[in-house]
């Protein structure tokens, strides 16, 4: 067997082997009382945009695409999700203090405004996460108004 063939065979073997290393799925299946959707009564288009563009990495329920069944894709995703949830988790939004909720709302707003979020690799694979200018404006205005009203009542 030539060296080239051996190397190729090794790659195939490693690829097949890693298919058995599957990280746990981020899917609780339930909507907590602290979920963003329950804490705020956002207009349906605001909530659905957040769900389409943010919830995969920032909530307890990820919608897994088909390629997540091929490794090492799921590993990359698991890392993104755990990092994303550590910073912001829409499922547990209501367990933050009001002060923190206001900060988080403003941070979400800034990330959208500065086009920092959603991240490019995610947008590449998820059409619905590519926010149009109208969608951005809709989210920014609602987030600002909500943060302001929370600030006033506290």
């Amino acid at each position, binding site marked *: 067997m030539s060296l080239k063939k051996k190397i190729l065979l090794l790659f195939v073997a490693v690829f097949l082997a890693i298919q058995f290393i599957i990280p746990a799925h981020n899917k609780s299946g339930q909507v907590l009382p602290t979920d963003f959707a329950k804490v705020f009564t956002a207009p349906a288009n605001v909530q659905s945009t957040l769900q389409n563009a943010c919830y995969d990495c920032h909530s307890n329920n990820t919608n897994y695409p088909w390629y997540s069944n091929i490794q090492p894709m799921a590993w990359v995703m698991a890392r993104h999700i755990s990092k994303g949830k550590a910073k912001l988790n829409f499922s547990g939004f209501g367990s933050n203090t009001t*002060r*923190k909720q206001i*900060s988080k709302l*403003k*941070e979400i707003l*800034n990330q959208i405004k*500065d086009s*920092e979020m959603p991240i490019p690799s995610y947008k590449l694979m998820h059409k619905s996460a590519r926010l149009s200018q109208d969608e951005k404006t809709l989210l920014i205005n609602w987030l600002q108004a909500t943060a302001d009203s929370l600030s006033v009542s506290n």
Partner: protein
Amino acid sequence: MKNAFTKDNTSEAATAGKTLQAAFINFDTKTLSAQQQKIFTDIADDAKEHAEHIGANGGNIAHQREHFDMLSKDMADLIQTFGNGGQTLYKDFCPMYNKGKGAYWISETKEIKNPYLGKAMPTCGTVKEEIKQ
């Protein structure tokens, strides 16, 4: 930190962010009353995250300033509850930041040195409140 922002110095601001974050984490709340502890924890939990972001984002001064805006609100609330520590402070207001929504900052000098606009508009802003002992 505020002085670093007035000079548009992003790395100095980051260093200050890390120092402040550590100060919030290491602060001993045992000297406070139960009521004070509650208020302090509420503010510090939020403030240390802003300090962390400022510390981690050296090189991205726009992002650092977004957090500085929110941090300034926390600092103002801290001072309101716990006093100014014996130093006269000034609560200043920049009317232009945030697309005309404006933003506050706390300063130790009466002279305006704007941390949001930096060298571009160093003297923009007004003193809104003098915080005396």
